[in-house]
């Protein structure tokens, strides 16, 4: 009798699981760079539209590109735009094109953990390249000290922290370093996953932030909001006009100004090392990767609805999380591009 009772409970439980309320679930995965704003957006959007759930997993831009190409998620997210090879791979595998939709503007910042130094250190492009190449090994190296006169830099070894997973944040960082350092360009190159000369690997922006926070004398690169939310200091970077700029809304918006006017139709553009006196040199768009054709009409409409919301009300909440709003011209162009999704 006990066995029959047990069986009955099992069957009921199964039914409960299967027949439970069916809100429309849309799965996405990708960049950790915009994860704070995405998770906020999806949470707010769900309260406004209780029948739609956007489940976003921050596994890194590399993961986003991979999973959307495999088709295991409905949309992807990446801060490194897909290159031509990846676009072709998507087309071959899924029989349709992949569209890029800029969501916000953000910044990679050099964040560090130096006891006694809470001020913002100034980093020149040479210093950053040297540190991540493993050539500048001590904190009081002239490459760093020359830009930070008056700061007491210890003679400690620099612990470099980078991403262990495929990352758009890495793409932005290495894209910048490739532009400002020929040695970096030839030795390492740019990509979501590179062969790092030195350093520890952390998983996601979260992992790098965690490692920097816990490891004395370390330096890593993270999206601005991660440094802000965790109260760890981050430095200024010298831009192409010679000014040391700290990452903030104004600096990022300035960096995007030039690109806004000349935005290509597929929205893939790099704004690192942008011209302009106030531009922050390690800024970037981050993109949602949406397939052009959808089998599932309900999902397509839900995604299109979200995109429209994101470009209107969504942009109002980005600044609170230290992301910059998309330039007006880009927003207009995107609204038109939404119609390409079928």
């Amino acid at each position: 009798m006990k066995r029959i009772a047990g069986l009955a409970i099992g069957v009921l439980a199964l039914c409960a699981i299967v027949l439970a309320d069916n809100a429309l679930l849309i799965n996405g995965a990708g960049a950790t760079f915009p994860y704070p704003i995405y998770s906020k957006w999806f949470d707010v959007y769900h309260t406004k539209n209780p029948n739609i759930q956007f489940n976003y997993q921050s596994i890194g831009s590399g993961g986003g590109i991979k999973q959307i190409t495999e088709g295991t998620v409905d949309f992807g997210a990446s801060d490194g735009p897909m290159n031509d090879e990846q676009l072709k791979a998507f087309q071959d595998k899924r029989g349709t094109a992949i569209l890029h939709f800029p969501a916000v503007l953000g910044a990679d910042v050099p964040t560090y953990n130096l006891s006694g130094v809470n001020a913002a250190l100034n980093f020149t492009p040479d210093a950053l390249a040297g540190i991540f190449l493993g050539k500048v090994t001590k904190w009081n190296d002239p490459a760093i000290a020359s830009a930070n006169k008056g700061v007491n830099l210890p003679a400690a070894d620099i612990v470099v922290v980078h991403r262990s997973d495929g990352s758009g944040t890495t793409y932005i960082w290495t894209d910048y370093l490739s532009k400002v350092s020929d040695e970096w360009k030839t030795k390492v190159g740019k990509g979501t996953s590179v062969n790092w000369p030195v350093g520890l690997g952390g998983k996601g922006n979260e992992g790098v932030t965690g490692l920097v926070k816990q490891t004395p004398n370390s330096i890593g690169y993270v999206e601005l909001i991660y440094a802000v939310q965790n109260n760890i200091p981050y430095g200024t970077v010298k831009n192409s006009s010679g000014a040391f700029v700290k990452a903030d809304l104004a600096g990022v918006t300035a960096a995007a100004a030039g690109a806004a006017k000349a935005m290509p139709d597929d929205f893939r553009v790099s704004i690192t090392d942008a011209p302009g006196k106030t531009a922050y040199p390690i800024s970037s768009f981050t993109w949602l990767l949406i397939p052009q054709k959808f089998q599932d009409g309900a999902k397509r409409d839900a995604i299109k609805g979200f995109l429209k919301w994101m470009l209107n009300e969504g942009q109002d909440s980005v600044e609170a999380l230290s992301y910059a709003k998309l330039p007006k011209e880009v927003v207009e162009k995107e609204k038109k591009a939404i119609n390409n999704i079928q």
Partner: protein
Amino acid sequence: MATTTTALKGAGPVTGSRSFFVKLRDGDEIARLVTFLFAATVVLITILLVWELWVNSVLPRHKFGLHFFVTQTWDPIVDEFGALPFIYGTVVTSALSLLIAIPLGIGAAIFLAELAPAPVSDTLQFFIDLLAAVPSVIYGLLGVFIVVPLVRTVIFPALNKPFGFLPIFRGPSYGVGFITAGIVMAIMVIPYIISVSREVLLSVPRDQREAALALGSTRWESTWKVVVPFAKTGIMGSIFLALARALGETMAVTMVIGNTPKIAASLFAPGYSIAAVIANEFTEATGDLYLQALIELGLVLFLLTFILNGLARLLIVVTTQKGSGVAA
């Protein structure tokens, strides 16, 4: 077991395919068939698993061949993949964990088998079995918040100041690294060494001990010089079992090893292991070669654990049979 065949009116002897369906009317044959199918499923799943691993790692096997095992580069941008840093990391952390776990484990097993009275021994074994049940991610959690700072602030200065000239103790130390993974893994494999060694020691026949004692040896001498050597192969088996577990350990390692695919002499350096790199990079391996290189690593891991488990079982069986086979 007799199969009752109902005689069909006017029919001859039941042969061939007809016999199958006739037999099927018999409850026993159905039971046999059904359970056979389920048992066959187990075999099928195993074959399928090995097949999938083999088939899905064809690209790197053709491209790199045996070079895969001696290349140090892991560069997804230029599609250069080498397994050496991961094999190195897996071997070093496992060896380190065994170095710590073996003396502790065998010591504890000796205590439980030889010294402790039976109820104490059973209770302690009960707790050891519970220790074996603690999930890997919990070890990782404790590793991140306890062992990492411990290594950075206590163990590194303690070993580096006096012995820093040795390449294995050279700094700098970040907290995460080979040694941290080794320490965490040691605690994870101790229960396996203890439980199997204890059983093997318990199976050593009484007269071995008694003979030694009769010849005038002390308690310790009879244990260390007679009982343990008798059970030696079984204890080796327990070590192999522990090693097999250590090799496949994923979560605890990836949380404390530093995730750096580099070979370094220092124990305090960050590294990577096969299981850890698969866990970190599998979901984002863009490109078939990249993904299949990871699967090939999985295949390597599978083969290693397969060989070790087989050897372990052999050694344990040999010892326990030896124990029971010797005349009482």
